[in-house]
C-alpha cells in the first residue's frame, strides 16, 4: 500500500456528482451550426486558413498554429464555412473574438486520417509535431498546448502524474471517460511516459469514483502496463489541483515560483492522455470532448460534444427545466458565467451547469472582513487570503505580490468558507490582471525608453559625422587651392580664414596699384621747355618733401 500525503487545508462541499454519472456517454446530436473560436488555448491565436463559403471535411485544419506556443484548430464536422468573424466566445469577459462559423452538411464526412500502427517508430519531435498539428491541449481546464509540456531535456522527469481526481462538484466527464475508455487513456499515458522518459506513472483518482478506479485498475492489468499505479486519493476539494495532487501522490511540495518539472514530476489530465492517444494512433484531431450537462436539467448526463456546438443546443439534449437563468462553464467553485447561452463549446468546456435561483441562490451581501482567518485554514496554497484580500481591495498590488498572490490557484475554498460572504477570488483575479497589465505597460515603457535613447544617440552620431565630413571637405578644398596657386601669395597660403581675407585685400590693393601705375598723366607730350622746367622743378620739390618725410617718420 502506497503512503499518501496531505496538502494543507481543503474543503468538503457537496459533490453533486451522482446526478450525471448514472448513464453512459452519449454522442451529442449534430448541431445546426458550429462556432469555433480560433483562440481556445494558451498562447497565440491560430491563423485561419479557410475562406467563407469553402466546403471543409471533418478533421480538416481550419486554423494553423501560429508561433512557438500555439495549437491548431479543426473543423468538427464536414460542412460549409459560413463566416470568419467576431463572435461571442466562452470567456468571462463577454467579449467577441475571431471565430469560424461552420454549417454542417449532415454527412459528417472525415478527411483522410493518417493513422499510425506503431508510434515507437516515430521520433519524439515528430510525435510532438503531430500533437501540435492535432490541436491537443490540456483538457483539465488550463488548455496549455500539450506538445510544449512533453519535453524532458531540461529536467529529468521521474514521475508522470495522470490527473483523474476531478475534485470539483457536479463535474463527471473524467469519471465517465475513465469508466468507458480506460484502455485508450493508458495508451496515452504510455506515449507521454516515453516522450518524458519518465519511469513511473501515477494515476490519482478521488475515492468517490470507485467505478472509475476499478475500470482503470482492470485496464492496467489487462494492458500489462508496468510501473503504472492507479491510486485512490481522499476526496478533498481542491485535491485535483496539479500541485495538490502531486503533493498527495508523491509527497513533493512544489514551492512558490517553481514548476513541478523542476522536481521531476509532470502532470496531465486523463482526458488529455486520451486525446493525445487518439491523435497519434488514429490521426484524429481534437474536435470533440466529453462535456457534463448538469444543474437545472431533467436528464443530467455526459455527452461527447463537437467543439463549437452552441451551448443551448447541447443543454437542450438534457432537457433544461424552467427557471434556468444562465450557464456556468466549469464547476460551481471555479467555473465562469457565460456571457450568452449560444456561445460555442471550446476545448476547455468540461461541464455546463444550467444555473437557477434554486441551485445557486443569489450571493448574500458581503459584510466586512472580521479577520477570522478561516480562509487561511482552508487555503490549499498555504496563503493568507485575508491579507491578500486587504491588499487587493486597497489596490496595494506590490504588497499583494509580496504575499504570493500568484501562488493562488483561484480554487474558491476561501470564498466558500467566508462567514462574511466576501467574493475573495474576484479580488484576487482583479489584482492579478492589474499586475499583469502593469507589468506589460512597464515592459512597453522600458522598450520605448530604449528606442528613444537609441534614436537620440543616433541623431547625435549623425550630426557629428556630418560635421566631420564638412570639415574634411573644407580642408581638402583649401589644400587643393594651395597646391594650384602657391606663387601668388606664398606667405598667406594658410587655411586660416583671417589670412585668406588678408590675402584677398592684398591682392585687391596690388591690383589697384597696378591700375594706378598704368594711368599716365594727360597732356604730357609736346610740352614747351618752360613747362618742362616747371614740372621738373615741382617734381624735385616733391622728391625733397618725400625725402624729408622719410627721414621724419622714424622719429
Amino acid at each position, binding site marked *: 500500500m502506497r503512503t499518501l500525503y496531505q496538502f494543507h487545508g481543503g474543503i468538503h462541499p457537496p459533490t453533486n456528482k451522482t446526478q450525471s454519472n448514472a448513464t453512459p456517454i452519449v454522442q451529442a446530436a449534430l448541431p445546426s451550426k458550429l462556432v469555433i473560436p480560433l483562440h481556445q488555448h494558451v498562447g497565440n491565436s491560430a491563423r485561419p486558413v479557410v475562406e467563407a463559403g469553402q466546403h471543409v471535411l471533418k478533421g480538416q485544419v481550419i486554423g494553423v498554429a501560429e508561433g512557438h506556443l500555439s495549437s491548431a484548430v479543426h473543423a468538427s464536422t464536414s460542412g460549409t464555412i459560413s463566416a470568419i468573424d467576431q463572435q461571442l*466566445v466562452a470567456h468571462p469577459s463577454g467579449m467577441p473574438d475571431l471565430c469560424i462559423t461552420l454549417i454542417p452538411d449532415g454527412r459528417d464526412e472525415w478527411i483522410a486520417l493518417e493513422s499510425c500502427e506503431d508510434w515507437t517508430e516515430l521520433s519524439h519531435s515528430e510525435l510532438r509535431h503531430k500533437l501540435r498539428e492535432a490541436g491537443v491541449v490540456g483538457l483539465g481546464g488550463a488548455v496549455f498546448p500539450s506538445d510544449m509540456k512533453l519535453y524532458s531535456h531540461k529536467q529529468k522527469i521521474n514521475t508522470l502524474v495522470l490527473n483523474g481526481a476531478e475534485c470539483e462538484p457536479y463535474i463527471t466527464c473524467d469519471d465517465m471517460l475513465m469508466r468507458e475508455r480506460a484502455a485508450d487513456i493508458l495508451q496515452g499515458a504510455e506515449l507521454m511516459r516515453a516522450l518524458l522518459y519518465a519511469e513511473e506513472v501515477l494515476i490519482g483518482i478521488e475515492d468517490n469514483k470507485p467505478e472509475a478506479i476499478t475500470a482503470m485498475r482492470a485496464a492496467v492489468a489487462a494492458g500489462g502496463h508496468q510501473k503504472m499505479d492507479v491510486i485512490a486519493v481522499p476526496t478533498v476539494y481542491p485535491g485535483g489541483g496539479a500541485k495538490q495532487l502531486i503533493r498527495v501522490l508523491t509527497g513533493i511540495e512544489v514551492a512558490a515560483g517553481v514548476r513541478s518539472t523542476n522536481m521531476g514530476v509532470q502532470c496531465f489530465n486523463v482526458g488529455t492522455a486520451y486525446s493525445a492517444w487518439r491523435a497519434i494512433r488514429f490521426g484524429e484531431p481534437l474536435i470533440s470532448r466529453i462535456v457534463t450537462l448538469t444543474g437545472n436539467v431533467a436528464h443530467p448526463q455526459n455527452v461527447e460534444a463537437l467543439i463549437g456546438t452552441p451551448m443551448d443546443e447541447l443543454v437542450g439534449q438534457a432537457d433544461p427545466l424552467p427557471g434556468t437563468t444562465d450557464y456556468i462553464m466549469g464547476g460551481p467553485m471555479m467555473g465562469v458565467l457565460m456571457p450568452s447561452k449560444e456561445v460555442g463549446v471550446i476545448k476547455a468546456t468540461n461541464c455546463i451547469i444550467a444555473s437557477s435561483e434554486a441551485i445557486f441562490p443569489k450571493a448574500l451581501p458581503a*459584510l466586512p472582513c472580521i479577520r477570522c482567518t478561516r480562509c487561511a485554514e482552508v487555503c490549499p496554497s498555504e496563503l493568507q487570503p485575508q491579507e491578500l484580500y486587504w491588499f487587493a481591495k486597497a489596490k496595494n498590488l506590490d504588497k499583494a505580490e509580496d504575499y504570493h498572490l500568484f501562488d493562488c490557484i483561484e480554487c474558491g475554498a476561501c470564498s466558500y468558507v467566508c462567514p462574511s460572504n466576501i467574493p475573495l477570488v474576484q479580488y484576487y483575479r482583479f489584482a492579478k*490582471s492589474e499586475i499583469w*497589465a502593469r507589468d506589460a505597460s512597464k515592459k512597453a515603457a522600458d*522598450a520605448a525608453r530604449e528606442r528613444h535613447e537609441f534614436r537620440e544617440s543616433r541623431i547625435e552620431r549623425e550630426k557629428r559625422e556630418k560635421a566631420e565630413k564638412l570639415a574634411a571637405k573644407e580642408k581638402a578644398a583649401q589644400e587643393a587651392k594651395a597646391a594650384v596657386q602657391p606663387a601668388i601669395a606664398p606667405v598667406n597660403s594658410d587655411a586660416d580664414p583671417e589670412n585668406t581675407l588678408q590675402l584677398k585685400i592684398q591682392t585687391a590693393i596690388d591690383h589697384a596699384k597696378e591700375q594706378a601705375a598704368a594711368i599716365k598723366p594727360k597732356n604730357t607730350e609736346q610740352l614747351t621747355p618752360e613747362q618742362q622746367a616747371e614740372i621738373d622743378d615741382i617734381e624735385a620739390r616733391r622728391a625733397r618733401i618725400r625725402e624729408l618725410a622719410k627721414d621724419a617718420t622714424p622719429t
Partner: protein
Amino acid sequence: MLGALLVMAAIAIVLGAVLGFAAIKFRVEGNPLVDKIDAVLPQTQCGQCGYPGCKPYATAIAEGVSDINKCPPGGEEGIHKLADLLGMEFKPFGGETIPKPKAVAIIDETTCIGCTLCIQACPVDAIVGAAKQMHTIIAAECTGCELCLAPCPVDCISMAPIADTVTNWKWKYPVYALTASK
C-alpha cells in the same frame, strides 16, 4: 596609554583610507534620483510636460524645477507614484492637462505622400517608410505621443484608442451593494 592612542589612530587611518577608496571606487555616476523618476514615467516621449522627453522632465523634477502633475499619459496613478517616490503631496492635474485613453497612431496609407516628416518627428522610431514611399506605423512600438500628427502636411495620421479585446481584458474590481441590516 600611548599604545592605545597609536592603535586607535592606526585604525582611524586604515578605516579612513578604506572609506576614501570606496567613495572613489563605487562612485554613483549621475543623479540616481533622475533614473528613479524616469522609471516611473510612461516613456511616451510626448513632450506634453513641456520638456523634450521623459528624461529631461525627470531631471527637472529631480532639480525641483517642475511640478509632478505635468504628465497626462502617466495618469493620476503616475502622480501618486511620483508623490510616493519624492515624499510629496498628491497634486491633481491642472486645468488643461487631461489624461486621454491610450491610443496608437494610424496612417491612412492611401493619403500618405511619403514626405518622411512624421518619421523625423517620431521619438521612438515607430514609423517605417522612405521618401516618396508609403509610411506605416509599427503599432506595437507606438507610444501614442501624437507628435507625428502636427508635421503631417496632408493630415493622414489619426489616433485610434486601443480597444479592449479578450486578450487584454482585465477582471474588474468587485462591486457589490452593501445593504444595511433591517
